[in-house]
């Protein structure tokens, strides 16, 4: 069997991985997933082979998801039962997704899998991203917050279907019952997407919101449990084959655990629509990045006329920069929401203290007179 090429680490590599890990962690702590779509190409451009990049990315993701889910569990946002059930079926989806990828690679080579991944990205992101972003903007305009969370009509219909022997009660949907038969395909699709584009949450979170009727904040928190269950199984599989570069994974983890805590804290200051807004925005920017790269894959497969190597280089760079912009803009929106939320909270707390002091003084003055 061939030896695996593990990259040499230097201070530059370590700093880059730490920073990307931090930003990815922050987005992940906030919307339940994210970061992987930049981390994998970043590791590959530092010299790691594709499979080592994917394996090491997964080995940093599951401990990050564990820490994030524990943090958000403290805020009462996680439905552990739903997360574990979805996670188990997601694991099955991961293995099936890998088989699909292996099959495509055997038939059409690496360019074939690249095109498949890009097409999945484009279809999922265009449909789901537009829908989530539109819903987030609509909710913001109507001024609705968490307290007025309304179960989507489709989710109400799903919850109304009773299939004997399959009904389970979940805290995330106000202790209502839903059939496990609807959770199985959602979990499976999440896992398949995770195996193809490394961001299963892009389907898991919207599906929980619009099919099961879970509020966005709770869906993103529960997705972290799904990511933990599915990531741990996937990492063990890769470790068995010896593809995990634990040095890389732990350096990324060093940065991402700072980020994931911050992202999780951020969720306590925002309303439901903000999570949808950030998620939709990131998805659409990532979509743009894939669209930029599409001609390169089509050219590799000779489905269009072969592109000039210089143009391919430009498109590759542009695509990577767009991915980085997706993460950075997510980080900026989350940071500003966190700062704004904390300032408002401090102002409200100070006003409340002042009001109580005033009332106390007034009571004393009245008693004296």
């Amino acid at each position, binding site marked *: 069997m061939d030896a695996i090429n593990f990259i040499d680490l230097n201070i530059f590599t370590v700093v880059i991985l730490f920073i990307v890990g931090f930003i990815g962690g922050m987005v992940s702590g906030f919307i339940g997933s994210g970061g992987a779509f930049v981390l994998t190409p970043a590791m590959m451009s530092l010299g790691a082979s594709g499979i080592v990049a994917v394996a090491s990315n997964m080995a940093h993701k599951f401990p990050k998801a564990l820490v994030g889910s524990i943090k958000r569990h403290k805020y009462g946002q996680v439905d552990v039962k739903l997360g574990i059930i979805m996670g188990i079926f997601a694991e099955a989806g991961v293995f099936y997704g890998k088989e699909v990828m292996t099959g495509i690679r055997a038939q059409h080579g690496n360019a074939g899998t690249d095109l498949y991944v890009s097409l999945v990205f484009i279809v999922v992101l265009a449909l789901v991203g537009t829908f989530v972003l539109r819903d987030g903007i609509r909710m913001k305009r109507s001024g609705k917050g968490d307290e007025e969370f309304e179960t989507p009509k489709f989710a109400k219909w799903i919850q109304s279907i009773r299939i004997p022997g399959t009904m389970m009660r979940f805290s995330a949907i106000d202790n209502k019952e839903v059939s496990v038969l609807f959770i199985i395909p959602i979990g499976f699709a999440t896992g398949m997407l995770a195996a193809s584009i490394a961001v299963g949450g892009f389907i898991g979170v919207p599906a929980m919101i619009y099919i099961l009727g879970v509020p966005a904040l709770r869906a993103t928190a529960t997705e972290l449990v799904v990511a933990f269950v599915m990531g741990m199984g996937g990492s*063990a599989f890769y470790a068995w084959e*010896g593809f995990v570069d634990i040095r890389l994974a732990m350096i990324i983890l060093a940065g991402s*655990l700072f980020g994931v805590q911050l992202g999780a804290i951020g969720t306590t200051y925002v309303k439901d629509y903000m999570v949808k807004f950030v998620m939709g925005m990131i998805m659409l920017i990532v979509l743009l990045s894939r669209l930029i790269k599409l001609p390169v894959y089509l050219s590799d497969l000779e489905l269009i006329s072969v592109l000039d190597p210089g143009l391919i280089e430009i498109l590759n760079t542009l695509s990577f920069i767009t991915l980085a912009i997706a993460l950075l803009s997510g980080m900026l929106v989350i940071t500003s929401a966190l700062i704004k939320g904390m300032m408002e909270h401090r102002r409200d707390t100070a006003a409340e203290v002042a009001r109580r002091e005033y009332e106390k003084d007034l009571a004393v003055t009245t008693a004296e007179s």
Partner: protein
Amino acid sequence: MRKIAERYIEEAAREGDPLPTVKDIKASIKKYRPAISFGVVSVALYSLLYFFSTDLTHLAQDSHTGQKTWFFLPIVIALIFSVIHGSFTSHFWDVLGVKAKN
């Protein structure tokens, strides 16, 4: 610890507050203790990772070529790091005053 106490007294004196009591100083030290403790252990873990990095890549190579006795070690390492470093980062933001809304 002594430095924290000295800084605490200096700040109080500068702001014209009454001198802090031993209880105040203890409370101040207590606030930083978990972040410092987990931070030290976290640095120790990363130092170990650095010193044994070659062995860890050899171990992965061994798993790849069929000797899978220690294949689970990366998973165990990831879990230990997540607990220790995760606790450190949590206390780190706490000490800086970045806390969740109640």
